[in-house]
């Protein structure tokens, strides 16, 4: 059933794109430098995979994403919780948060390079900036969207603030939190590739830029395909973790 409904159409879609790519290259309309053939890209991919170059790039970029994403999640969760548990604190940071929300992280790169060099700190900050806001906004939405009538039930059973937070507000916000995490993960993945193209000597983004400078379009394409695939796979893995967490109970905005 699943094979007929999903996998088969997916294979046909991908196959069509590959076929079109192959035909364009075989027809000789475009130069091999502008668009290398699928076969050439495939053999380059195998070579890069065998040499460990590809895996290393993926791991470096992924490591940066996980670190920045983790920090951003902790920050977003903390600030959003603060907003619920101590509403009076909100005006102190809300405007600063809103300000940074409107600054694209890429625009911060020159300053960050000046302050932190092109080391890991710059890249971590970029990812934190890119992934913080979707998570913060959806966690806040989840928290504030909690049905006050359910909170009243907690109050009628003498729940304190903290207990009500963990047993009512947090579970009812779960779906929103998870959707925010998913969006943010995508954002951090994009941001790190961008940052690595500007300020890095390792990682997938740097690999692509370096390949361009060496006129290796085939390597550029391998890099792009890898980015797409790794992004999809991490998204899918997060989906599995989350379905476990939400227990299929909360509608979690997945698939």
């Amino acid at each position: 059933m699943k094979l007929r409904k999903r996998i088969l159409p997916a294979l046909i879609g991908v196959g069509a794109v590959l076929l079109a790519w192959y035909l364009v290259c075989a027809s000789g309309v475009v130069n091999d430098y502008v668009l290398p053939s699928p076969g050439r890209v495939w053999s380059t991919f195998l070579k890069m995979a065998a040499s460990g170059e590809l895996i290393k790039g993926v791991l470096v970029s992924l490591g940066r994403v996980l670190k920045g994403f983790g920090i951003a999640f902790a920050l977003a969760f903390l600030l959003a919780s603060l907003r619920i548990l101590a509403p009076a604190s909100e005006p102190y940071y809300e405007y600063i948060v809103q300000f940074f929300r409107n600054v694209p992280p890429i625009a911060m790169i020159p300053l960050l390079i000046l302050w932190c060099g092109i080391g890991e700190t710059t890249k971590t900050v970029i990812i934190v900036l890119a992934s913080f806001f979707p998570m913060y906004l959806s966690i806040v939405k989840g928290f504030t969207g909690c049905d006050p009538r359910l909170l009243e039930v907690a109050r009628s059973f003498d729940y304190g603030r903290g207990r009500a937070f963990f047993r009512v507000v947090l579970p009812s916000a779960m779906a929103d939190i998870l959707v925010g995490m998913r969006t943010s993960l995508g954002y951090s993945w994009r941001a790190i590739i961008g940052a690595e193209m500007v300020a890095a000597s390792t990682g997938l983004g740097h690999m692509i830029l370096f390949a361009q400078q060496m006129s290796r379009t085939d390597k550029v394409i391998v890099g792009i395909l890898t980015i797409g695939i790794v992004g999809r796979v991490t998204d899918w893995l997060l989906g599995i973790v989350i379905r476990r967490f939400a227990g299929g109970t909360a509608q979690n905005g997945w698939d």
Partner: protein
Amino acid sequence: MDGIEIRGLKKSYTLESGTLHVLRGLDLTLEAGAITVVLGKSGCGKTTLLRLVGGLEKPDGGEIRFHSPRKTAFVFQEPRLMPWLNVRDNIQFGLRRGEIDPAATKRIIETVGLTGFESALPAQLSGGMQQRVALARALACRPSFIMMDEPFAALDHFTRESMQKELLRVREATDASILFVTHAIDEALTLADKVVLLSGGVCAAAFPIALPHPRDLMCDELIQARRSIVAALGAAA
């Protein structure tokens, strides 16, 4: 005296069109271990009274005196279950970790007739079943004072009857005081030790009913009581 005394209770809401005085100096005594039923038309302030007694809202004036410390439980007009918790966890929602007793929970699930649905989520239950879970949630914490806001309004005739019996049994077993809101006269007559008529923001009339349970609604005393309640309701309107 042991019980709850309500004196001069006032509550008003500010609406766009002006101030709405819902309770205007209400006096009411809830005897310990008794079932006090508040009867009144829709919108007369029954839920408001219950929320004030339950401490979910602050009164504008007057006082509510509890004569002994008590564990209270609230059954709301709607089920208000946690959508992410299954039946069992919803029922145990009012308990602290150390108070959870699987055997007791099982018994309560049995009495509200939900055996087999322990792992079901609220969305998978009918409205009446959800309300029974809400009732079980209140009973599970062994309250000595239960406030109930039209808890059986959504149930069919037979389930309502068995829930009423169950409530009386709980009262027998635990000696809990119960403040029960309804607009169904039959239900009031079936359950009450005292029926209180809420109208015009005060207790317009009180009818003590000192009959043993189970009661025959067709017996002379209750027919008589029904007559005077209907008359008082009509006079209040």
